[in-house]
């Protein structure tokens, strides 16, 4: 089952396409990270998936074929928008009551237990809580709806390291317990490696890379060797991004797998998620969709040192 599936999805604001011909399928049972530069269309995609916006073109289905925004879809999805929106004047207890009244399903016991664990006083106004606590309150409200899919837009952006850790711990524990799927957008690359097992790289309103993290890592490597041979290697292999100094070059290349032969005189190193994401972000023309195919014929630009 796919928790989010789009085909030819497009969203135009005025004369600008925020998302165009966007086709992706996010399988269930993953913590999927949506990564891309500012303005790439991440928030637009999430808003379309949770039913807060309507597509200009194409379609988006969720939870195995429910149209986004339909009652069945709304029941199964919880969404925490950027900056953890809460009614700042309402005490935490009233936020629970309100959310409970507005939703068909809401687990008050779960919510109260979590808030007690987190040490969030029920009588305190939401606006008076610390930034970390506000995020945790918003997350608690979302999780108490017992969603099958949790969607988070930049959940970590304004949190300190400890709050980030505890926030993600809570998300992941809920995923482990209930088999809930998670789709989140994030700029915090260093943490993605631990958190996400599915990656969707968006750039310029299109999917650039999508796949399971383990598989993506196994299908890429960095080759280090003499700069003089880099051009020749680049003709034979699929180079995503090249960094070249006078003598030495590092090429991030796609491979068939770890068993692929290494060119003589070159060293092969495994890539990290961060390295992989940065390489693709620097090369918006390179794509690793289902197969190792490049969307554009253009040679990757080279960054000289």
């Amino acid at each position, binding site marked *: 089952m796919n928790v989010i599936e789009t085909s030819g999805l497009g969203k135009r604001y005025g004369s600008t396409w925020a998302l165009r011909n966007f086709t992706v399928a996010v399988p269930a049972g993953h913590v999927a990270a949506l990564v891309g530069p500012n303005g790439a269309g991440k928030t637009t995609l999430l808003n379309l998936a949770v039913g807060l916006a309507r597509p200009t073109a194409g379609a988006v289905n969720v939870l195995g074929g429910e149209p986004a925004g339909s009652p069945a879809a709304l029941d199964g999805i919880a969404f925490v928008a950027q900056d953890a929106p809460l009614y700042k004047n309402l005490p935490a207890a009233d936020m629970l009551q309100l959310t409970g009244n507005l939703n068909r399903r809401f687990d008050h016991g779960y919510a109260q237990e979590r808030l007690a664990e987190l040490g969030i006083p029920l009588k305190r106004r939401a606006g008076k809580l610390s930034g970390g606590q506000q995020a945790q309150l918003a997350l608690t409200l979302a999780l108490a709806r017992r969603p099958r899919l949790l969607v988070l837009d930049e959940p970590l952006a304004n949190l300190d390291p400890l709050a980030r850790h505890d926030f993600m711990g809570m998300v992941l*524990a809920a995923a482990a317990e209930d088999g809930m799927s998670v789709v989140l957008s994030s700029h915090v690359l260093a943490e993605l490696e631990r958190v996400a097992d599915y990656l969707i790289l968006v750039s310029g309103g299109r999917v650039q890379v999508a796949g399971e993290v383990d598989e993506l890592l196994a299908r890429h490597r960095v080759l280090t060797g003499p700069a003089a041979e880099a051009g020749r290697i680049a003709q034979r292999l699929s180079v995503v991004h090249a960094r070249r100094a006078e003598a030495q070059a590092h090429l991030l290349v796609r491979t068939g797998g770890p068993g692929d032969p290494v060119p003589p005189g070159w060293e092969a190193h495994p890539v990290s998620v961060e390295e992989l994401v940065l390489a693709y972000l620097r090369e918006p023309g390179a794509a690793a969709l289902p197969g190792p195919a490049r969307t554009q014929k253009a040679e990757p630009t080279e960054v000289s040192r």
Partner: protein
Amino acid sequence: MADGPAGATPPDAGGGDGDTPLARSASPIEFRLDTASGVPTYLQLVHQVEHALRLGYLKPGDQLPKVRDAVASLAINPNTVLKAYKELETKGLAVGRPGQGTFVQATLSQVALPELATLRRSLLAWLGTADAAGLDEDGIVALFTSALRDFFERRGAPGRRGTSDSQKEGVA
């Protein structure tokens, strides 16, 4: 997976006003992560279990940390913990019991805890001598590693179990 109200359990680190004493998991060990090591997370978990088995922190029948607890305290993907536990099952070291958790099935430690403590004491005494002779930490490691290699080469293959990584853990 039913389990108690075990919250996220960062060992000290505020955030939850130290509300965790009762929530301690049933497992004798707790995982930690070395994000700078470059070792994949699931392998770190596998190594930590093996290490704990060697040093006697874990013995057959003991429960490994519940997936939910490990995930909450380390903020890692649940599939990573599942992958580590599957690997331990493949190695015959652990077994999953549906609805209960994953339990230690075999042991890696060749000697009992009291013996280990005695060996540790004599090693510490030796380290004191080496320190007094003027060896620094790197020097001690180099000397120990080379002596270890000599010892097992002279004795022949049996008794030498494992790979370079068990050797590294022995030194650490």
